[in-house]
């Protein structure tokens, strides 16, 4: 018969801790988890892993903190009736500690209305959102591999001497390392017992000591990565470089293929390739190509691969990336060091560190092994802020007062006054999102610290602070935005028809919006067919610059409690459709029922009619150096074009030119629109069709209808 502490080790150890300290309790929970979590090792197992067939009802996860899985809890009560009482006691004790609930409970009614936790007039309307997520980060796996847990303990010893009186923190970190050692010892015993000599040999050394070859390095990375809770592998080719030469191409491919199955099974986040150093030298090794090759081979939607490029990226790397994109998996996303690194340096990040950036989660920018960049702190829908401006602070769909009073339609004498009102709304809503985000961040720091990551992210041991409490070297924040182009197009139309030509009054425009353009055919035709962002039209692009400069610039004046600056980005994931539905009619011709909002920094889907060079020219004019959290730019190519060498070369030249002009990022979907339409009708036939959503790749048939339509509407680059 199982004991309660065997089936729920985390909760038991957490509650029974001798010391009443969240970090210490969580460390004890981790150590006890390592003792009892079932391991997957049989005679022919390639890499040892964690067996998750019988999940815990209570545990700790890097992004969510402490929480309970209600379903698992119910199942366990049925499975172990003799433990029912004890399980219920655990539930009573752990439930109040659920970090996500704590965050949600901390929101005011107004905040709940802003983030759609409370429906407005029965509708799902979202204006902004603030930090109910504990943050992605990239642990420094290179340090882990080089030092082993023995070396990490030496760091703790030094930190303890430097920060006297902080013993509980360092004890916690040490206990978290015990967890890794226990895992290693158990894996060694289990491997020996079942006759898996290769794994036994590996675990006789790791994780206490440095691995000796590529296989052992992969194994050490995998077991720690898995135990830590599956986040982003980060700069994989870079941190594996020490070991690249210890194996042949075939041996490395064998390991990568195994890892790939693991990444797919666990929905692993971002894996980053390449990158330049601060002297401009481009880093690449055979693994860069091999990862791209494995991605082509399996065509999985995960991990989310990023390729960093610079002026010195070899042509072969570009070609390999284009070949992988041609498979249609939407990866790799390509980031431009020449734009990202200087942007990070403006935040005060040292050049040596700015050049060590990689991606987190979808594609937010992070410093490898040295930061907590607040991923994800919050979002602000700019298009919704414009809706509030047009209705003097009220929601155009529900009539609910969400913003602040910035004036009636009649009160604006000029476009400048109208734009100033819009800016006030944006600032107010941004402040709301930041307040929510700060509440969340403080709750995570206090109730859900992470002693394991504090070991693996530089700065925590040195400062004696947890990774969620300002410990890392860099502690910036991140607010993403939605609907940039919709806002720009709407402002351009209002400027032209209301203030420049005077064809309509602002009141007429608002009346038309409120009636969803019914009975306003001429006004609708004028507004919806007016010049759109993404077509290389200077007067519209200038408005975009003003919108971005204002929003990102405003964020840069705000500080995180963890000791950093807020940065902005545009990476809308699957949420563009959610915000779109709650935004209502807009002066760019968007109707109430339309889910469509710009899903990247580019044009509103379908509004870029002058081809990709015009689109990228428009986007490159944006002050992209202000977008320190990732500025996703979506392009959609047809399969026919991309399978030709000419099409791939055309893409590479397009990307290089965009980057030369200051562009930060490109995400590419290679699809056929007919196939997408057919997949909407016959999802069962297109289960494997992958598309690029805002920040990541996903199976098309899994997406909501609104999002599917959004992707179909993206202008396709054909020829």
């Amino acid at each position: 018969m199982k004991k309660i502490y065997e089936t729920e080790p985390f909760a038991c150890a957490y509650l029974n801790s001798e010391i009443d300290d969240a970090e210490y309790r969580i460390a004890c929970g981790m150590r006890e988890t390592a003792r009892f979590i079932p391991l997957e090792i049989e005679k022919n197992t390639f890499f040892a892993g964690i067996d998750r067939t019988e999940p815990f009802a209570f545990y700790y996860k890097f992004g969510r903190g402490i929480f309970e899985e209600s379903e698992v809890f119910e199942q366990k009560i049925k499975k172990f009736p003799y433990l029912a009482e004890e399980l219920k006691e655990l539930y009573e004790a752990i439930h109040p500690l659920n970090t996500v609930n704590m965050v949600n409970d901390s929101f005011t009614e107004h905040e709940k209305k802003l983030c759609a936790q409370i429906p407005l007039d029965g509708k799902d309307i979202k204006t902004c959102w603030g930090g109910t997520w504990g943050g992605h980060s990239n642990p420094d796996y290179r340090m882990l591999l080089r030092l082993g847990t023995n070396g990490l303990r030496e760091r703790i010893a030094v930190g303890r001497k430097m920060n006297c009186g902080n013993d509980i923190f360092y004890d916690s970190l040490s206990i978290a390392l015990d967890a890794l050692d226990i895992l290693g010892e158990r894996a060694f015993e289990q491997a020996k017992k079942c006759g898996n000599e290769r794994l036994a040999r590996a675990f006789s050394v790791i994780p206490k000591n440095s691995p000796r070859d590529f296989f052992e390095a992969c194994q050490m990375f995998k077991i720690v990565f898995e135990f830590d809770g599956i986040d982003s592998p980060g700069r994989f080719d870079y941190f594996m470089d020490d070991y690249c030469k210890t194996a042949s191409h075939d041996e490395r491919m064998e390991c990568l293929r195994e890892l790939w199955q693991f990444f797919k099974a666990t929905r692993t986040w971002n894996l980053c390739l390449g990158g330049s150093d601060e002297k401009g030298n481009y880093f690449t090794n055979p693994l860069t190509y091999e990862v791209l090759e494995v991605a082509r081979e399996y065509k999985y939607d995960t991990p989310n691969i990023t390729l960093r490029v610079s002026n010195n990226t070899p042509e072969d790397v570009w070609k390999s990336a284009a070949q992988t994109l041609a498979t249609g998996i939407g990866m790799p996303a390509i980031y431009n060091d020449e734009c990202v690194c200087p942007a990070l340096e403006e935040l005060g990040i040292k050049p040596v560190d700015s050049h060590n950036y990689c991606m987190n989660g979808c594609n937010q920018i992070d410093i490898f092994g040295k930061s907590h960049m607040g991923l994800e702190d919050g979002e602000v829908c700019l298009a919704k802020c414009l809706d509030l401006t047009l209705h003097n602070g009220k929601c155009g769909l529900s009539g609910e007062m969400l913003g602040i009073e910035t004036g009636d339609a009649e009160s604006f004498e000029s476009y400048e006054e109208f734009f100033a009102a819009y800016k006030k709304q944006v600032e107010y809503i941004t402040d709301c999102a930041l307040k929510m985000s700060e509440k969340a961040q403080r709750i995570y720091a206090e109730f859900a610290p992470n002693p394991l990551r504090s070991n693996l992210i530089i700065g925590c041991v040195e400062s004696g602070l947890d990774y969620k409490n300002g410990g890392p070297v860099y502690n910036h924040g991140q607010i993403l935005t939605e609907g940039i182009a919709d806002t720009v197009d709407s402002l351009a139309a209002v400027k032209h028809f209301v203030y420049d030509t005077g064809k309509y009054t602002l009141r007429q425009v608002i009346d038309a919006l409120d009636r969803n353009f019914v009975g306003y055919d001429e006004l609708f035709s004028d507004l919806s067919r007016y010049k759109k962002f993404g077509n290389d039209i200077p007067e519209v692009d200038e408005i975009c610059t003003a919108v971005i400069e204002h929003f990102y610039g405003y964020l840069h004046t705000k500080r995180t409690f963890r000791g950093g600056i807020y940065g902005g980005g545009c990476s809308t994931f699957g949420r563009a459709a959610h915000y779109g539905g709650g935004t209502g009619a807009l002066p760019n011709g968007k109707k109430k029922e339309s889910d469509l909002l710009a899903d990247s920094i580019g044009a509103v889907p379908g509004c870029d009619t002058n081809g990709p060079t015009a689109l990228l020219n428009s986007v490159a004019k944006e002050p992209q150096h202000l977008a320190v959290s990732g500025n996703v730019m979506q392009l959609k190519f047809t399969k026919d074009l991309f399978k030709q060498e000419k099409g791939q070369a055309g893409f590479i030249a397009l990307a290089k030119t965009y980057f030369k002009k200051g562009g930060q990022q490109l995400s590419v979907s290679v699809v056929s629109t007919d196939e997408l339409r057919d997949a909407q009708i016959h999802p069962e036939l297109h289960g494997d069709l992958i598309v690029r959503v805002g920040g990541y790749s996903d199976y098309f048939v899994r997406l909501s209808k609104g999002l599917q339509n959004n992707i179909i509407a993206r202008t396709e680059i054909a020829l």
Partner: protein
Amino acid sequence: MNMKNDGNTASLFNIQRYSLHDGPGIRTTVFFKGCNLHCIWCHNPESQKSTTELMFYGNRCVKCGKCLDYCEKAFTEKCTRCGRCSSVCLYGAREKCGDMYTVDSVFAKICDDIDYYEVSDGGVTLSGGEPLLQADFVTELLKKCNEHGIHTAVETAGNVPFDVFEKIMPYTNLFLYDIKCIDEKMHIRFTGVSNSIILKNAEKLKKCRCDVLFRMPVIPGFNDGQVDAVSEFVGCGKLELMPYHNMCSAKYVALERKFETEKAKIPDEEYIKELAKSYANVIN
């Protein structure tokens, strides 16, 4: 509108950016309106007439009647398809195809993508219609591009006096020279004109020291029997086969014209690849 070409303005129907198939690299293709061939498979039917014309998209029409208020000839046989009614249509059902452009305005548009040409070794391609029917404008535009170091290509069907070629040659880096077929009768039947000038000009062009890529549209059931003859004619030059497609059907509908080769077979990639293998001078 004065459609007469006075050298400094030209009738165009499109300026297509990010062209990858009309010469090397990323290019901007300038499409001239007006052609002296009328190929039955023409994939740019709106390029044939030199004047502005109406494209009507019936599926967008809500029958509001605004066009009838504007012009009593709308929807009648008297309609000259001048396209002016497009200015009153709120629904995009009536669109005007073709406009007059100055050399400077076209050049400015070309310059918008100059960075892309630089990175990709691309440039500008003049196409149509038949650009060489507006030779003065073409010369000026090419000259200007040439002065600014922009690679230039001219796509032509070649049915113009050879002195036009001589005039533009100094500023043209590449000719994309279309040959539909060698058989003269067939040429008259499919394009409405003889190919004798076209072939003579091609011979002369081959002897000049300029870069020429011959291109042949392959329309199964129509001219595909002529690949042999065209390849032989091209000789030691280079030939590219252009597989027929019918993506232009909607344009024929909008022009309310019949598309004679609509039902022709669309050659698949394998067919073209196999065909290409049989000829040393085919570059596909």
